[in-house]
């Protein structure tokens, strides 16, 4: 399931590498295996996404076609955005956000059917996938990034390193 999620977050296609090409899921599994806390968080989060899929699409997540899987993730993403902290929010928006947060909190009414856990887990999963993908050699090559910064630095500011 992790592999399917990673591929939906950064898809591979003919235009360039994606999560599958850069083995993001394997890296995340290795990352999770190093800490019981992270492992537990992933287990709870994946189960919650699966629960949302069953509740809203009538099937386990992996049983859905990719378009329906995206619908499920889009629904979770929308909730996460609704409760996300924003510095410049108006007073009314802050109240709405606070109410939504209570509604979707793990103990709240809206938390049933997995959304309470899923809307917290999914943004972190996106961040983890991006972190794995964008620190890969293939991704760097695809966008022509000549890092890391050290130990060489950039003797020539106008020309890519090694060009």
């Amino acid at each position, binding site marked *: 399931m992790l592999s399917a999620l990673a591929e*939906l*977050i*950064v*898809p591979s296609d003919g*235009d*360039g590498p*994606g999560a599958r090409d850069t083995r993001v899921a394997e890296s995340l599994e290795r990352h999770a295996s190093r800490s019981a806390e992270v492992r537990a968080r992933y287990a709870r989060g994946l189960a919650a996404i699966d629960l949302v899929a069953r509740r809203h699409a009538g099937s386990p997540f992996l049983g859905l076609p990719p378009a329906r899987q*995206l619908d499920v*993730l889009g629904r979770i*993403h929308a909730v996460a955005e609704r409760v996300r902290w924003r*510095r*410049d929010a108006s007073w009314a928006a802050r109240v709405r956000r606070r109410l939504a947060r209570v509604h979707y909190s793990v103990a709240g009414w809206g938390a049933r059917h997995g959304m309470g856990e899923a809307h917290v887990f999914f943004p972190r999963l*996106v*961040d983890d*996938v*991006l*972190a794995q*993908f*964008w*620190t*890969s*050699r293939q*991704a*760097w090559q*695809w*966008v*022509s*990034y*000549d*890092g*890391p*910064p*050290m*130990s*060489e*630095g*950039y*003797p020539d*500011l*106008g020309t*890519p390193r090694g060009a």
Partner: protein
Amino acid sequence: MPPRVAFRASRQQPVGVVIVGCGAGGGVLAKELSEAGLTVLVLEAGRRFIAGVDYRTAEREFEVTAPTVFAPEPSRDRHTCHGTAFEVSRVKGVGGSTLAYLAVVPRFHPSDFRVRSEDGIADDWPLTYEELESYYSEVEYELGVSGPDGEDASPFEPVRTAPYPTPPHEFNKASLAIKRGADRLGWHLRREPLAIPTKPWHGRPACLRAGACMFGCAAEAKSSIDVTYVPKAEATGRVEIRPRCVAREVTVGDDGRARSVVYLDAKGQEHEVFGRVVVLAASAIETPRLLVMSRSRRFPAGLANGSGLVGRYFMEHLAVVAFGVFDERLDAWRGTPAGGSIQDFYETDRPNAFARGFTIEVNCSRQWPLAVARRLGVWGASHRARMKDVFGRMVGLATVGEQLPDVRNTVELDPVVKDSFGLPVPRITCEARDNDRAMLRVIPRRLTELLEAAGAREIWEPAYMPGWSAHYLGTCRMGRDPRTSVVDAWCRAHEVPNLYVGDGSVFVTGAAANPALTIMALAMRTAEGIVRAFRDGHA
């Protein structure tokens, strides 16, 4: 390993000077005082970092691992906010926030020291630019500051008696794109003074232009305090730095003089060190916190707080951040993250609805793949396409806007929340007040104007980021009158003759310039005052 020291502080044998904090102020004080023959003990809350070992900017995962190096310790470094959320950005460690600074070290302008006289707002400093000028020069030569002289200098540069020690950095492609816009508008984008030498300096190498200054310079080219002042201080054999030691109280004797500093080590064990002079250089957040925690019968509102002004007039710089996306590749990550500054709006301009002004800085930091991917905030099929579209073509602008001192902006002790040592955490109140808000209405327009003139095809809406500047100032202000200030012109507490403040707390106003150089220059001058007090038998 630091050299062995030739003294041991004890109750029977007090050290000459106890300094709390080893950042821009404390490090300078330690060197200057020890070179003058005094014994110095420095208590630093954070750890000692070793450039070649701790910094992680050579790793492929550096965007994930490097930011963890200076990250706050959640249980030790907590704070709370009253009102607007305020993101505290500071580093605890030997070197303080200079470990992570972008090393932008402009001088303040002469007008900054007399805003009451010139603009009728806030208060004048009890000293002038001219009195500080020679200290500015000395610090610049210690750091090997690079900057433009002659025709390339900023027309707004204050009068200098010595040229910059090393030549300016060259502009990268991102800065040149912004310069194109500035030139069209008739604004003056110039290389800013950087504490990053462009040639080998005092045994350190010239800058490698790696662009990761905020994560610590693995080459030790950036002139942070730990690689400049600290080694020289320790070389005297009269300085001992104790890392991971958190001061919790400055005690006073029956004579009303500071007597000792009580601190907690990494294991939470309590110790006490005695000094003839105590200097607090722990930042504009920690210094007032420590003073207020040092309540006693003689000082019921906190040490040296008879005026009630300890913790008041907290300021930071108004940081508005904007991004522009260009058609051409800019590859902004190559070269120093600081990419030049514009000071055309620095001084008070009568037609404005606000007093004082702001500096615009080109900010090339965090243009690496993961940073840009996170900034985009999209995932799925559109993510990679969007990355391909903007990556390498983006550059940031940020402002250093002068927030005026306001007595309602404060650092206090939180009445409820405690840190891991059981000490009350700082509670920060920092609101943009009338003058600040008027300035904040103009800044986004100027940033947008600049990006448009530079030819950006996409401009991200400028956002005000409270706390982001990391320049925290003004909670133990200087002044001649003990009723309206905490320390005098030599940064000595009005009420406690052997207590000094050596950090940005003493600033009367914040100016529109990065404060590190002014903190260092003031610390040097304060050291001179302390040495004189010892010589005259007042210490």
